[in-house]
């Protein structure tokens, strides 16, 4: 058993941390405040190759493993969770299913620009009445000649409006339930595909979250991703990997909040000494660090299993469940350590606590993770 990162894994951590601290961190607060992402950061990440980390070089990816990918998302999220989910949703939820299920033509046409960062990606699965029960999607896709005609709407779509390429899960045969679903690649600008409401959120406020609306949107038949009937399966497999990204995001948020709290506890003085000298806070710091370390091991292990080609559905659900609950707990404690200052926007822990909450909800709520884990245990 080896608990040591490889040379390139260490190097990606250092590089992304440098980048995150100098380029992203100064913008994290203002972008949160403005509820707008500064996409010049995207261009810089594309140049560095952060937009296609786990894909082979032949598709313009970096040819790195999923542990590297998790480390990159962790380091970005350590200073800005909105940046973490931008990369995670793009990579895991859009580029990955195209890489895993796409034809060679689809990969050339869509994966290459996604991985190189020329295009941004998103996944549209959730609907107003199909959340945790994602198999019950109502958006319909009807074959008409050489085109599928899409009707319906998707909500809460990360990177919505900003993304150029969308993987959309729709129902092609209502009588078959989730076995009658299919995945499609839909380009922004396709007639009949528009954007509805922009969500105003508690956290990850710089991340764009939109409703997608399809009204007689005609998608070429060759944009069917994988087999007809396998849409839900593709979505579930995509989420298995996506959860590694979100778990890494949660881990990064927790680490960021811990680092801030540790630093502050050493300089803030009360009763004539640094608050870190009080055992009550020392125990809090010890628990925070311990949970973060446990989360990190779960996240890297899930990524490692994926790299080894071994089953990872249970482990990625465990990693996401534990890391997201860790992030919520740690950020709450971080605010506590900052006292009143932590509750204000003067310090980043307030934002981090708001950002942490979403990791317990999207890509399957904590309850859904427990369902996935239990189903794996009982099968």
């Amino acid at each position: 058993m080896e608990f040591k990162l490889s040379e390139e894994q260490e190097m990606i951590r250092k590089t992304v941390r440098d980048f995150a601290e100098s380029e992203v961190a100064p913008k994290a607060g203002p972008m949160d405040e403005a509820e707008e992402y500064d996409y010049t950061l995207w261009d810089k990440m594309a140049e560095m190759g952060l937009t296609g980390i786990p894909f082979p070089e032949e598709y313009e990816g970096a040819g790195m493993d999923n542990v590297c990918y998790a480390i990159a998302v962790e380091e970005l999220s350590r200073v800005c969770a909105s940046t973490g989910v931008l990369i995670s949703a793009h990579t895991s939820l859009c580029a990955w299913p195209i890489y895993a299920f796409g034809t060679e033509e689809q990969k050339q046409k869509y994966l290459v620009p996604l991985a190189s960062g020329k295009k941004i990606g998103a996944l549209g699965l959730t609907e107003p009445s199909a959340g945790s029960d994602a198999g019950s999607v109502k958006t319909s896709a009807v074959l008409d000649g050489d085109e599928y005609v899409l009707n319906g709407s998707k909500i809460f779509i990360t990177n919505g409006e900003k993304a150029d390429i969308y993987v959309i899960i729709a129902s092609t045969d209502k009588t078959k339930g989730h076995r009658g679903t299919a995945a499609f690649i839909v380009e922004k600008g396709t007639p009949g595909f528009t954007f509805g409401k922009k969500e105003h959120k508690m956290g990850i406020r710089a991340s764009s979250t939109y409703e997608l609306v399809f009204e007689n949107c005609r998608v070429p038949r060759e944009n069917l991703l994988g087999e007809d009937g396998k849409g839900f399966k593709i979505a579930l497999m995509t989420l298995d990997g996506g959860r590694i990204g979100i778990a890494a995001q949660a881990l990064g948020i927790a680490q960021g909040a811990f680092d801030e709290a540790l630093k502050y506890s050493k300089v803030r003085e009360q009763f004539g000494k640094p608050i870190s000298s009080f055992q009550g806070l020392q125990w809090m710091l010890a628990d925070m660090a311990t949970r973060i370390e446990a989360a990190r091991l779960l996240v890297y292990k899930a990524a490692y299993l994926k790299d080894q080609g071994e089953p990872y559905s249970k482990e990625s659900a465990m990693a996401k469940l534990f890391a997201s609950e860790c992030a919520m707990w740690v950020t709450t404690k971080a605010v506590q350590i900052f006292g009143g200052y932590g509750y204000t926007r003067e310090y980043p822990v307030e934002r981090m606590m708001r950002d942490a909450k979403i990791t317990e909800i999207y890509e399957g709520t904590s309850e859904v993770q427990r369902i996935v884990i239990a189903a794996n245990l009982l099968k």
Partner: protein
Amino acid sequence: MKILVCLKQTFDTEAKIVLDENGKIERQGVSLIMNPYDEFAVEEALRLKENQGEGEVTVISVGGQQTQDALRQALAMGADKAVLVDPGDVELDEYSTATILAKVISGMEYDIILGGFRAIDDGSAQVAGRVAEILNIPVVNMITKLEVADGKAVATREIEGGSEVVEVPLPAVLTAQKGLNEPRYPSMKGIMKAKKKPMQKMTLADVGLEEGQIAPKVKAISFSLPEPRKAGKIIPGEPAEAARELARLLREEAKVV
């Protein structure tokens, strides 16, 4: 065009320096980085190569095995080869380091040698100049702009109160000042390529030197840490009154105005 860059691994700028029980700087547990001024030099070397459309960038360092991290970073940024001379567990001063570097370099082909003008740790700003002296080639220090053409380098350098443009024939040593460029981040592809690039490791003997030849000429007698910064003073009261009090303190206590 053969471009050499001398680089040093230093303490992280944010590292907390402490002294061990012998009064020496504690190196244990300190995170290390590429000397930021050397990063400018690496970046300039890469730009030179890119602008010329051809060339080879070799990065060279004298240091222990962990110095490979700094060299690897330069390779990930785009340098082609790295050379590490590990002199073993010996004390080095600027003379020793420059002697080793010059010896290695004298066995290599080069058109231009770049380095940072100083290292952020000991800050002596001597090594590059000494290397140039030993190799008997010109040195231009603290450059903020560089153009190379027709076997000549035209460099802009900082001087007291202004700047100066200097032309030197190549080969020459040029040292980087802040402002020369904005170093790139290693790309992910660069990181993947870096591990396949050559990293030549040499001992003193491989270089053709004996310990006696690099014995330091300067000996640090003692180290001390700066006085901890005192807490600032807040002057209460009405703005006009507080300003008057501030002026008085600056004049009478701090004696700065």
